[in-house]
């Protein structure tokens, strides 16, 4: 085997200087990459866009083989798995009933409280066309890109929970950094208790939890959802459950299984600026107390310095904005103007006399 019979073309040590130079160059490259992490990203996105049709063609016949080999380990525990799933299914049906009842109650409370509705969530459905599982990197490639509105930072979910987030978007493809990847760090909230933490991937199947406060006690089984901090991910995306780490601390058992996900949704989270609710007549203290709205004050004719009423001189545009209006600021209106019974138009005071 191997090299036993081959002669060496050059003696040992002949390439020491180039090796030292290249090692220095490689270290410089790493430092540059640390400073500018998207060094290759544009080229990578172009290559992926270019190779996407080939990936789709090659992936189709291999997907079945990939799934079959990936599930070989499960063949030996089919019976136990089936029993466990039946039990879990029965338990989940009970939870489903409870969830439906609670959902209706929450909606009723929201109506009563005039609660601000949840932010708009739009999703782009995409197909997984590639996966990379390297020692320092766990990613997948989707067949949707900038042309479909995909942007870096958006969350990726499947039917069970969150998988990762978009790291790089090409025109028609996008790279997803999985939650288990070394580069993944997202703010999460642990329920119940609304405990804030950072979930960090370390290339194992269960990401670690770095608690932001040391005065909280976690228990295995608590739910982990996205916290929404930072504004990129919507709050409340299901992620997983807390499990104890045998070596200390806590980890997250993810709900989603990126290895078997075929179709995923990319969450386009548009956080609208919260607007204060519009004032209704019932909100005014006087109206709410059952009193009639205050009568508008009688118009006061504007007077000139000499005491005579002013009139608009001929030739002056009566609709021309006054200095206050030119700034976009409206003149103060009387309180009655906000009531259900509007004041007569002729009663509107006009100190400038221009309207």
């Amino acid at each position, binding site marked *: *085997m*191997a*090299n*036993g*019979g*081959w*002669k*060496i*073309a*050059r*003696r*040992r*040590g*002949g*390439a020491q200087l*180039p*090796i030292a130079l*290249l*090692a220095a*160059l*490689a*270290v*410089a*490259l*790493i430092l*540059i990459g*640390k400073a500018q*992490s998207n*060094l*290759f*990203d544009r*080229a*990578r996105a172009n290559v992926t866009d270019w190779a996407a049709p080939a*990936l789709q063609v090659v*992936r189709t016949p*291999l997907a079945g*083989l*990939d*799934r*079959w*080999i*990936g599930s*070989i380990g499960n063949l030996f525990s089919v019976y136990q798995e089936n029993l466990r799933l039946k039990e879990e299914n029965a338990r989940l049906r009970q939870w489903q009933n409870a969830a439906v009842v609670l959902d209706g109650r929450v909606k009723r409370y929201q109506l009563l409280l005039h609660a601000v509705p949840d932010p708009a969530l739009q999703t782009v459905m995409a197909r997984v066309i*590639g*996966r*990379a*599982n*390297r*020692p*320092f*990197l766990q*990613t*997948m490639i989707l067949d949707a890109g900038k042309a479909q509105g995909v942007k870096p930072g958006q969350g990726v979910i499947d039917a069970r929970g969150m998988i990762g987030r978009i*790291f*790089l978007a090409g025109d028609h493809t996008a*790279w997803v950094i999985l939650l288990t990847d*070394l580069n993944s760090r997202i703010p999460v909230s642990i329920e119940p208790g609304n405990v804030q933490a950072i979930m960090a991937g*370390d*290339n*194992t199947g269960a990401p670690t939890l770095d608690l932001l406060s040391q005065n909280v006690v976690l228990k295995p089984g608590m739910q982990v959802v996205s916290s929404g901090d930072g504004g990129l991910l919507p709050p409340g995306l299901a992620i997983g459950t807390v499990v104890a780490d045998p070596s200390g601390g806590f980890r997250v058992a993810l709900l989603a299984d990126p290895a078997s996900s075929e179709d995923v949704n990319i969450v386009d989270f548009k956080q609208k600026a919260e607007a204060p609710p519009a004032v209704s007549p019932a909100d005014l203290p006087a109206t709410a107390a059952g009193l009639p709205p205050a009568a508008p004050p009688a118009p006061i004719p504007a007077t000139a310095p000499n005491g005579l009423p002013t009139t608009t001189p001929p030739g002056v545009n009566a609709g021309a904005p006054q200095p206050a209006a030119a700034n976009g600021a409206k003149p103060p209106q009387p309180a009655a103007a906000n009531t259900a019974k509007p004041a007569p138009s002729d009663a509107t005071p006009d100190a400038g006399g221009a309207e």
Partner: protein
Amino acid sequence: MERAGGMIGGRILSAITPVLLGALGALAANFPISFLGNLVPPPLLSLMPLYFWGIVRPDLMSPFWAFMLGLLEDFLSGPGSPPGVWAASYVAAYAFLDSQRDVLAGLSGLGALMGFALTALVACVSAYLIVDVYHWRVQPLAPVLAELAVTVIAYVFAVVILGGIHRRVVGPLRSDF
């Protein structure tokens, strides 16, 4: 059978074959489609031509090409991977290979496999340490060990193909006759 390296066109082919196979190995290993359900990471296919011809034809597989193959590995491994990690690791592996060329070239059978395993270990440990320092966090060792194991097992089959290509296309250096 006459080697392709005996003709003028064939000489160019023989000169580029080691690097070409290294680049093809990097492409194949980083093709983002799993055949094994992501149970194990793909082997470092580009390291095999680097090791093989780095020993027997270092004039065709120079440190520069080791650096370039590592850089290609970095580029193809996907976004988020720090650039330069595999470039530095392949240069480190080449430095080990260059310093131990006499010993490594004299090995055969299981010894030759151990020689490759040692070189792959240097590459994997270098990459592991660089990533640890880069992220300033100790990474789990299992994925790197899995990649090392898969790479060494794959070399058992790859060396047969590489040996055949060397005999038919590349051949020894003319001065070695």
